């Protein structure tokens, strides 16, 4: 019946890509504790890296640390990233890149969001008083 119990962890991280190893270590410890299978480890770290680095690069007004919240609940993995004191930035409104372009017309921009959308089952967004939270859901079974 452990599956019905919520397992959760949260930690704040400075707005720099240099802290990615620390983020991955935090996620690894949570996945081990919550019994999340290895097959989900790399894809979910990919999702968090892509959105975290987007927030670092593009969130307007952000100066505070970014909060990463991890939950295992009802057979789902729920990952949230919250940015404080920023403008609205809804990932669901970001247009997909065309991955069928030839080399001449390809640029790396936007590729990360295109890919992360394919690694999760659902994406939610909430914006209240400068608090911007993006939630990614992955079914574990």
């Amino acid at each position, binding site marked *: 019946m452990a599956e019905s119990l919520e397992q959760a962890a949260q930690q704040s991280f400075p707005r720099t*890509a*240099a*802290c*990615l*190893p620390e983020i*991955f270590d935090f996620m690894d410890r949570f996945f081990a504790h919550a019994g999340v299978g290895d097959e989900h480890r*790399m*894809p979910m*770290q*990919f999702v968090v*890296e*892509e959105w975290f*680095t987007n927030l670092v690069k593009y969130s307007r007004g952000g100066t505070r640390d970014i909060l990463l919240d991890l939950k295992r609940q009802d057979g789902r993995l729920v990952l949230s990233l919250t940015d404080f004191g920023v403008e609205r930035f809804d990932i669901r409104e970001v247009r997909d890149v065309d*991955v*069928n*372009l*030839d*080399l*001449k017309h*390809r*640029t*790396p921009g936007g*590729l*990360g969001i*295109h*890919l992360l959308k*394919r690694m999760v089952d659902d994406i939610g967004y909430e914006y209240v008083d400068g608090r911007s939270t993006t939630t990614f859901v992955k079914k574990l079974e």
Partner: protein
Amino acid sequence: MLDIRVGEKGEIVLSGRFDASQAVKAETFMAALTESRNVDVSDLQYVSSAGLGVLLATQKRLMATGHALKLVNVRGHVREVLHYSGFDQIFEIEAAPPAS
């Protein structure tokens, strides 16, 4: 952490994790390449869009002079990311042999 080195046959060997915190290191290494090379990713566990960006920029630069990178021993998460990125259309990609 990403390890990047030249192998015994002149191939580029990438191992570990190719994430945004390692992109500058990889860019510096790749900037010195001027000819076609195989890139062995058999021990590369993870790649993000930051890593893909370095590979794409290098491929563009090399192809402008008639050269190219070929990605070999591709497997697992890296194979999935390359496929969904459409990189199998702009790189020659050789899958890793099945595990025995």
